[in-house]
């Protein structure tokens, strides 16, 4: 069959003038089609609806809504929460990753912490909010602290609970890539630990660290379940406001506003993820 003819490996001589051969990229069609239907098309719907009116007419002026101080407030709130939780997560995650990496590579501690990180990185939502409510409430294990209830402090601490494990998972390969020989070489040349980190280790780890930071930022931005389970009386961040725009029962529901906020989020995350992709390519070069 013609299909077989096109799947020749490089070992066979190439034919001049392909006849009836399906190009190789056809093999990727199932994947591309799947992604197109379930990812690209829904996103397209959201983007298009963001620029429409409730009655279906085009309304490009909707974009100016993003400049509305109320809306800006939600984005600023999201930004604050995401920045704080990703900074804390990145720094502490890096420290924890270093502690894990510098131990026995085959040991139980490393396996334990990796397993815990794998589980906790996805542990969020209702159960996490509840764990902290159980911890903090007056009858919980700790007395409740007022600062915990003010935005963004409490929710930031909750977010770091899954940010730190994610950072460990993402940053560990980078630390593993730091060869022992480099450390030994720098010591042979008389460098102190501080100098090693400042001139060798630091710059090597920097792209991976920043990449991890950006990934954590994007992760925090999309988080939804945790914050609505924790506090739902005030909308601080964009996902909460999207939820209000979709399900408000006092007449403030507006799908187009929800789509517009979603569009804003997509733009914000796209900027972050582009930075991540660029940094991550830089880091890969060093670790090869």
């Amino acid at each position, binding site marked *: 069959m013609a299909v077989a003819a096109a799947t020749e*490996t490089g070992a066979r001589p190439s034919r001049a003038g392909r006849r009836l051969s399906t190009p190789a990229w056809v093999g990727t069609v199932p994947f591309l089609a799947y992604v197109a239907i*379930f990812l690209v098309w829904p996103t397209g719907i959201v983007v298009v609806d963001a620029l429409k009116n409730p009655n279906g007419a085009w309304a490009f002026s909707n974009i100016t809504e993003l400049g509305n101080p109320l809306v800006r407030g939600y984005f600023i709130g999201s930004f604050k929460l995401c920045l704080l939780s990703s900074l804390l997560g990145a720094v502490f995650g890096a420290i924890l990753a270093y502690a894990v990496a510098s131990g026995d590579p085959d040991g139980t501690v490393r396996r334990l*912490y*990796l*397993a815990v990180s*794998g589980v906790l990185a996805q542990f969020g939502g209702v159960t996490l909010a509840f764990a902290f409510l159980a911890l903090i409430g007056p009858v919980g294990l700790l007395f409740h602290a007022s600062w915990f209830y003010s935005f963004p402090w409490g929710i930031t601490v909750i977010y770091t609970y899954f940010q730190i494990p994610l950072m460990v998972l993402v940053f560990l390969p980078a630390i593993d890539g730091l060869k022992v020989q480099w450390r030994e070489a720098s010591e042979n040349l008389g460098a102190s630990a501080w100098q090693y980190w400042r001139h060798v280790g630091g710059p090597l780890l920097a792209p991976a660290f920043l990449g991890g930071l950006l990934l954590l930022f994007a992760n925090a931005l999309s988080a939804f379940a945790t914050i609505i389970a924790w506090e739902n009386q005030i909308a601080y961040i964009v996902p909460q406001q999207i939820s209000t725009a979709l399900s408000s029962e006092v007449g403030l529901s507006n799908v187009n506003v929800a789509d517009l906020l*979603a569009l804003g989020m*997509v733009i914000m995350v796209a900027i972050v993820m582009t930075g991540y992709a660029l940094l991550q390519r830089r880091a890969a070069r060093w670790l090869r």
Partner: protein
Amino acid sequence: MAALTSVGETPLTAPAGRPSGMQARRRKRLNMFRYVVFTVFGLFFLLPLLAMVRFSLEGAKLGTWSVTAWKQIASYSGTGIPPLISSIEITLELAVITCVVMLVLLVPTMIWVRLRVQWLARTMEFLCLLPLTIPAIVLVVGLGAIYNKIQHYSLSALMLFWVYVILALPYAYRALAAGLSAIDVTTLSEAARSLGASWFSVMVRVIAPNMRQAILNAVLLTAALVLGEFTIAYLLLYNNLQVELYSISRNTPNAGVLFSTSVAALLFGFALLMILSYAGRRRRGRG
């Protein structure tokens, strides 16, 4: 940058032999540092979990103990909604289906792209990273129309797998890409082909076994994602584990079963990961 650390993977470089003098001092300081770090972080992660365990063992009156909440995992049922155990079943089934479809979709495509369609590699990487860029809450707004069509064929919550595979793409792709880059796909496939193997055989019998650790890793990350997914199921009005837990939390004063189910899910995931971590180690030894 290398992929997410796979659970069973160990770094290639081993630490140096018995240190002495300055290295011994450094080693001691390092160990001190490690103990402090592990204790502090251990506490941070452990405390909320302990609080959950404590509340899961809480009796009807505060201060008494009882294992009712744990027994309720199997028996809890609200009026009109399917029992808790059925949402657990559905979520587990969803995890399995999502993993299978994800592997069937990604592994052949990635191998194919690696071998024959390299110019699509960047695009594929971009597409696989895209779900991270598009938050679930955004995606679900656009998915309404598609799921309406799907619901004409099947009302089961298992239909969520279509979108869960998309959500798992970034994590699974990274894990599989790490595995693929560690082996010489071209040589292996050429050798197999020259011995007369079909493409199916090449993928399933030659390349995939060499990627076992990466595949395990991808499966694990996908399963963890499905077990914890809330937003899309909630907004598409399906009933999975997290949605049911949310419902219980909003409507029941005796939320003990909420805590016991969460602790059980966490322990399950943790046990799975530890097993896989030790299972993967044996493979690695053979290189």
